[in-house]
């Protein structure tokens, strides 16, 4: 049980890291086509906030239906798959968007939607889903929610700092993308494997 709890918090932490690292690298990915002006960052941040908000909503809804650690792992794996185009075929996608829109603001926004809407929305579902798995009673629900926010946002802090201060000095953008996807796949798979008994747990609380 403790092992599963740690894994849930790890997923929450990692997803926070992943989202902010993706956001920073998104700036790098878009720059050759749309520049680095304030509107490019505006477009990226707008899209990330929108995606996260929708993700929170969907994650909360989804957590009401037989929640389990296994399913949480599946969400993480799904986000990983959805993020693959960001590394593998970002340039062809950006070429296409660049052809279609000459305005750098809407171009940057359209490019952000094409690349990041799916993976970030799915990533947003993780925190509310984790809260559902961790809450054991009404009295401690706020405490658990606070802890999840803390862990996830702390992950975002680490993802921002490490990526922008250090990792871009060592790795290429695609190496960072693929590296993060490998970690996501690893943690997601671990959750799928260890999530078996969690399913019963989910049933007990869920209905």
């Amino acid at each position, binding site marked *: 049980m403790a092992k599963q709890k740690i894994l849930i918090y790890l997923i929450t932490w990692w997803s926070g890291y992943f989202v902010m690292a993706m956001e920073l690298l998104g700036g*790098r990915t878009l*720059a*050759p*086509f*749309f*520049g*680095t*002006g*304030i509107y490019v960052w505006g477009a990226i941040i707008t899209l990330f906030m929108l995606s996260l908000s929708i993700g929170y909503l969907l994650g909360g809804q989804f957590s009401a239906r037989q929640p389990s650690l296994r399913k949480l792992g599946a969400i993480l794996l799904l986000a990983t798959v959805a993020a693959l185009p960001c590394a593998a075929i970002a340039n062809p996608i950006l070429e296409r968007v*660049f*052809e279609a829109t*000459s305005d*750098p603001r809407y171009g940057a926004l359209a490019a952000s939607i094409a690349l990041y809407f799916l993976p970030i929305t799915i990533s947003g579902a993780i925190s509310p889903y984790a809260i559902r798995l961790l809450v054991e009673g009404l009295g401690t629900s706020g405490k658990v929610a606070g802890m999840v926010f803390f862990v996830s946002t702390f992950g975002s802090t680490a993802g921002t700092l490490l990526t922008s201060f250090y990792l*871009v*000095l060592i*790795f*290429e*953008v*695609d*190496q960072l993308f693929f590296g993060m996807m490998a970690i996501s796949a690893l943690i997601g798979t671990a959750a799928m494997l260890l999530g078996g008994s969690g399913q019963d747990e989910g049933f007990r609380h869920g209905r």
Partner: protein
Amino acid sequence: MVVNRLSALLPLLVIVGLATSLQAGVVAEEKSLYRNVLVFEEKGLRCMKFGTHDNARQSCMEIADPVAMVFNPPRMLMAGLYLLPDPQRILVMGLGGGALVATLQTLLPDSEIDAVEIDPAVIRVAKKYFAFTPGKNTRVHAEDGRVFVKHQLRQKKKYDFIALDAFDHISVPEHMTTREYLQELKTLLTDHGVLAANTFSSGRLYDAESATYAAVFGPFYNMQIRNRVILAMKSGQLPEMETVRRNAARLEDGFRPFRIGQDWLLPLFATGNRWPEETRLLTDQYSPANLLMGR
């Protein structure tokens, strides 16, 4: 609560505002989406800088003689004409006070010039305080340089002379340091085209920049004062100094009103720039230019 915080900040804002306007020699300040543009005067010069605490001059002109080129970076970029004296189509990245564009359009009135400047505030200040008036064949575009290049590539535009002046020593637009960007510029050049790039790189960035330019253009002339100007050709074949000297002599009379000439420019021409074998190229995938600067 937000209102409370704002009102607490208000006295601070007033003080900062006063400090800015009281700063010695400041003639004007133009609000900008990027960094506010300050115009200040000292020792007969009017100069442009960005932000209050930034001491990097972006451009200067002599108040008594606005035609004279008195600021090193645009003066050194003019040396590009020693490699190709009569370019028909010219691209200038980064306007500053407009000194380079003004000189080029006076010297070559029939040449078409595209000037690209990301900050509309800089364009306004150049026109208002630096006597910059675009000529009949000059177009000024308020756009990110890399985005402008992508658009020109799509339209299959070609330039004989490209001058890059978009950097200062405080901040480098990293997407304009990469191999891919230089390759895009190379594609925009005609077969005999010339690239002149002004940068302020130092430390490991200096070597990375050298290696990246060499990887795309081959050998280049390296002019070094505090800033650095790289002169390269699309063909990869630099003209001999013999040819450079001949072109310089031909241009001497034309250059004189702008107070530039071969006596100052020719000694700056250098080759044999070296960098460590293992120097990593700057690419769209790897471009921590600002972190490499000064390291």
